[in-house]
């Protein structure tokens, strides 16, 4: 048998990678990194210089003082409450906002855009900045801290939920809608079962993050353990600071684990 296979394959043209563009992007990246390193006075040797101070601080950890443990425990309770209420209010408020900010559920495009921008605003401003703002308007204390958490978290949960809503299986919604059901039933039976389990997971994850944030709002007057940490660190009370930091770590790790158990077993 002759082997005269003479066929040409019609291989489609492959787009040439733009090497120049890639080199340019690399150059821009490196330049940006160098410039920002200069701006932030990047200097690894500073760590070496600060070793003496660090050792002094760490020695405080080796004998934490429990003299004021009662006060601190109470403050941790305040911090937890700030996190609980801040997250809860946000979780509730974010739901209607998320529906208005979901392109497949919103009544009209104007409302959709307004809500989206509001949520962006809430997300853009960090909790600490909100805390400062609220301290100025409602005074020092846990309420200011809680409101800061609530507003920022509303932005985050609202955006997450609206994106979840936008990616639901419309077929399941149609299965309720096509029968002529009332819109409230369409939402309750067609939409909510698809988004609620994910949403509750997000809420718990946000709660974990908010416990951490709540410890920090105390630094700017938002109540809770943060205040005592700041007070002790700036007066170099290393033993007391150590106790507080240990308490915070303990609190955060406990909450993380409880949250994990809830998420894995009940949602």
């Amino acid at each position, binding site marked *: 048998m002759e082997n005269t296979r003479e066929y040409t394959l019609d291989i489609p043209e492959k787009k040439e990678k733009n090497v120049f563009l890639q080199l340019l992007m690399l150059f821009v990246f490196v330049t940006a990194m160098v410039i920002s390193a200069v701006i932030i006075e990047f200097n690894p040797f500073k760590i070496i210089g600060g070793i003496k101070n660090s050792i002094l601080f760490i020695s405080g950890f080796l004998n934490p003082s429990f003299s004021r443990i009662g006060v601190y425990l109470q403050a941790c309770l305040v911090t937890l409450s700030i996190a609980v209420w801040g997250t809860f209010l946000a979780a509730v408020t974010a739901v209607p906002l998320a529906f208005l900010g979901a392109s497949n559920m919103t009544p009209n495009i104007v409302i959709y855009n307004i809500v989206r921008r509001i949520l962006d605003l809430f997300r853009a401003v960090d909790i600490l900045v909100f805390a400062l703002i609220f301290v100025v308007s409602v005074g020092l204390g846990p309420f200011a801290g809680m409101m800061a958490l609530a507003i920022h978290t509303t932005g985050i949960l609202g955006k997450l939920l609206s994106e979840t809503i936008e990616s639901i299986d419309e077929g*399941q919604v149609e*299965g309720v809608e096509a*029968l002529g059901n009332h819109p409230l*039933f369409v939402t309750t039976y067609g939409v909510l079962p*698809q988004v609620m389990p994910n949403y509750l997971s997000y809420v718990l994850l946000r709660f974990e993050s908010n416990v951490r944030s709540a410890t920090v709002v105390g630094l700017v007057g938002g109540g809770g353990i943060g205040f005592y940490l700041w007070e002790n660190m700036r007066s170099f009370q290393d033993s007391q600071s150590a106790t507080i930091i240990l308490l915070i770590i303990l609190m955060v790790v406990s909450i993380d684990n409880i949250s994990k158990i809830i998420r894995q077993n009940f949602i």
Partner: protein
Amino acid sequence: MENTNDVFIKTQEVKKTYSNTVQALKGVNVEIKEGEIISLIGSSGAGKTTFLRCLNGLIKPTEGIIEVNGRDITKLDGKALRKYQKKVGIIFQQFNLVKRLSVIKNVLIGSLINKEGKEFFKALLGVFDEGEKEKAFYYLDKVGILDQVWKRVDQLSGGQKQRVGIAKTLLQSPDLILADEPIASLDPYSSISVMENLQQINKEFGTTIIMNMHYLDYAKKYSTRILGLKHGKLVFDGTPEDLNENAEDYIYSGANIEEYKAGNEEFNIFSENAVEQGI
């Protein structure tokens, strides 16, 4: 709805053009009586799904009239449209059940349409009374999946899911059932089971059934009448016996009627449109 010999559904010159200038329906005229089981056949893109959705008000035709018991449903909107839709059951190829909810909850969705006042609020919270649940159990038993009642729908097979859809439709007590490729996603045994269920519903309740069908043998076995759509027009309207091989070929081929008749044996098309427009 008791006029068993009068026309139940009548469509006149129904046309539908989608926004991307695709003309799915080019003028469909048909009269349907109560109690018929109709299979709508034709190749993909012929307009079957579009036509079915027009019958339910899920889509509004661009032109034309659809009269159901004398009322033009294309003019209905909002609450009035929903009121009409409550009387039309619809079974989907992809089931369209709420996957995370149980079988019983999915079936009870068929009962939500009649809720008012206190019942309405109870249903929003997922509370149903025993009487309703019993009706749901009864229909689940009728389609043969009562043993799956508490399971989440996403744990069921395709055939089981479709039967949940049928039970849900039964709870609705509709006057008309539309089925969009009800067995296209099912294995042969489930397919037979679903078709037998539909046939039994028609026999027991006299419900009119209109289904989109890809499988011609099922269409012929389970229908009383066959409508063939081609390029958005009705080109065949006859009994299963009329649908011989040539008719099938013609409905699914790209050739127009003259070309087709030129090369093949005679066959019957009971629709005048086809010849007139030279399809």
